[in-house]
């Protein structure tokens, strides 16, 4: 499968998806670590893709997303943002609300 199709499929099939460096349990970057911790604190399951293990996705996703950096959080097929946005939304309670809404929608 072409990388771009793989990306589209991942985004379509996982309503809460984090592209990150490393894994939530063993993140390899401070920004990815913060982002995955905030998501875990929201208490819902989410999928992740370690872009360090998937160099093709790392190379192609920024152009598709029109977003140059990682982590990237995708909810309901839309890019929510990177670490700074995730943290700001988390602190205001907006991330939890968005996630709850998405979980209800896909239930």
């Amino acid at each position, binding site marked *: 499968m072409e990388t771009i199709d793989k990306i589209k499929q991942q985004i379509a099939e996982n309503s809460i998806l984090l592209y990150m*460096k*490393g894994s939530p349990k063993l*993140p*390899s*970057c*401070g*920004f*990815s*670590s*913060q982002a995955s911790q905030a998501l875990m604190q929201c208490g819902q399951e989410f999928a992740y893709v370690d872009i*360090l293990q998937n160099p093709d996705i790392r190379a192609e996703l920024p152009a598709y997303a*029109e*977003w*140059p*950096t990682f982590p990237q959080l995708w909810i309901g097929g839309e*890019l*929510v*943002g*990177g*670490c*700074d*946005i995730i*943290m*700001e*939304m988390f602190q205001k309670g907006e991330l939890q609300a968005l996630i709850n809404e998405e979980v209800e929608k896909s239930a």
Partner: protein
Amino acid sequence: MKIQTQITDKLNAQFSPTHLTVENESSQHNVPKGSESHFKVVVVSNEFAGKRLIQRHRLVNGCLADELANHIHALAIHTYTVEEWSLQFAAPDSPNCLGGSKGDETMKSKLN
């Protein structure tokens, strides 16, 4: 021109900010001394009024597209309108380094 100066000039030109800080945080990361690889910007501008965070960050990323593609590895972005900043007056700290740029092939070309 130093990357830090370049970033400052571009952000000033595009957003006419009432407050702007461009901080080189590279020394907190696993890169050679004197590197310009990790930056944090705080931009306060009414250009952000009525725009969601993702739209604001897209504007900043777009303004610094060349630097992101060719020079810098990490960019922390904090954007506020003048009113939001008047209620806040401080942007959050960046997270600690976990060594993610070590062994990263894309770093070599950016550190020249």
